[in-house]
């Protein structure tokens, strides 16, 4: 196994508020790693820093051995990191197909996107039915499917997902997680930020627990599910 992502002692600020106070984590190729923690612990900030849409105060980020700490998000996406943002952030006036086309923005104009459409429509058949509808007219669950599919269109090696389950019915969340397993089996490494710790731990290999901007502890997901500290705070005892 080789390391695909290495975050070293990362700090970040929103104005004078210190959102990350020195986070380090490593992700191996092919893994599903989850980052759990309470609201405002810095999980989303961490993902934004990795993909380059937020300024880091100190520390480093390495992707496949390359330092991307100061690299712009447009280049980072091109290198192979994609992110599914919190709240889905669909382009509401664009159709489902156009949203997917935007997902493939970094790919060459000459490339045929048909295999990619087939791939995402295979994972989420519902999207195919809605291909020509506006993104804003989809249901919350469909929008989340679209957000995941859109991120896949850049053929990422590393997929960052911010709050997959937020605001969705449990049945739907379950099937979305199944889809993620499928995507992971096809070779994409996944880092998943979640408030639904139970679900996230069940579906991941390893986990980091973040509390107020630092990694409180980490370990195998299966072990954390049994860990008293995790059970007490995040799994409701």
């Amino acid at each position: 196994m080789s390391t695909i992502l290495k975050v070293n002692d990362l700090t970040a600020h929103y104005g004078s508020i210190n959102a990350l106070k020195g986070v380090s984590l490593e992700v191996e190729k092919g893994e599903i790693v989850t980052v759990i923690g309470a609201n405002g612990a810095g999980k989303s900030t961490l993902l934004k820093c990795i993909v380059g849409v937020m300024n880091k105060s100190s520390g480093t980020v390495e992707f496949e051995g390359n330092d991307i700490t100061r690299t712009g998000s447009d280049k980072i996406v091109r290198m192979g990191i994609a992110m599914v943002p919190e709240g889905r952030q669909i382009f509401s006036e664009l159709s489902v197909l156009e949203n997917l086309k935007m997902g493939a923005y970094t790919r060459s104009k000459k490339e045929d996107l048909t295999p990619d459409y087939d791939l995402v429509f295979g994972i989420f058949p519902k999207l195919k039915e809605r291909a020509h509808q506006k993104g804003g007219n989809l249901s919350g669950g469909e929008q989340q499917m679209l957000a995941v599919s859109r991120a896949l269109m850049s053929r990422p090696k590393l997929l960052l997902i911010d709050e997959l389950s937020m605001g969705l019915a449990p049945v739907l969340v379950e099937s979305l997680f199944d889809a993620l397993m499928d995507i992971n089996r096809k070779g994409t490494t996944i880092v998943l930020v979640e408030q639904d710790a139970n679900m996230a731990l069940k579906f991941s290999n390893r986990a980091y627990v973040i509390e107020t901007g630092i990694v409180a502890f980490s370990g195998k997901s299966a072990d954390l599910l049994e860990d008293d500290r995790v059970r007490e705070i995040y799994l409701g005892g």
Partner: protein
Amino acid sequence: MNIFLQCVINGVALGAVYTIMALSYTILFGTLRIANFAQGDIYMIGMLLGFTFYVTASMNFFVGLILAIIITVLVLLIIDRLIYRPILRTSSMYLFIATIGMATFLRNASQLVFGSESYSFPHLLGSKPLQITEEISIVPQNLIIIGVCIVLVIVLFLFMRKTKTGLAMSAVSMNPFAAALMGVNYSKITTITYAISAAMASIAGVFTAPMYNVNTTVGASLGLKALIAAVMGGFGNSVGAIVGGMILGLVEALGSTYISSAYKDAFAFILLLIILFLRPQGILGRKRITKV
């Protein structure tokens, strides 16, 4: 009836100018949320450059037109890089004020370059009106302006719908954060948007030059009225800019004939007030719902 039809023809020609300029405002506002109050003076610079190349330097019209477009685009891109972008990093309100200041600066700086007299720009196909019927006619230049407007609208819409960059501009306008996550380079999109906006304004400037006294103040009132057209239609909405531009042109032409030409410039403002009172988001604008 003949008078009415004549007014409509004149109004459409006037509306075509407002439409092009309203589009040049709205593409900037729609994509980047920037209202550039100096847009009328960008139009003026395009017009005076066109005059300089075509009349003063007696160049071929199309060579002069292309040179005028290129230089006008460069002017706006330099303004963006040196002034607008650094200011935008502090606050969008400061940028708003800065664009008003820029309008005055450009007007005065242009006087240094082009002088303060008024010039006249020859009609491209002669100034003899073409008779449609015995009592209805159209000046060839107006026909050209309407044609240019139609071509620009088609090219702009094809660009926005059919090209990757156009799609990215729409994406940025809807959700800049998500667009960045797709790998869109915001700075590059900003540059392209300013370039399109300046190109449209300069094209309008050169083609309408024969209809106006060519001088450095020509952009001020036209720029303001085109802004009104864009806001009436729904600021940031391209179809709205066309609707707003045409309505404004028609109302001005009909109003100055049937009511009084003394109030010609007032119609735009009265219309704006009425429309914003009835529909604050503009004719085709969407209500902005602010999430709490």
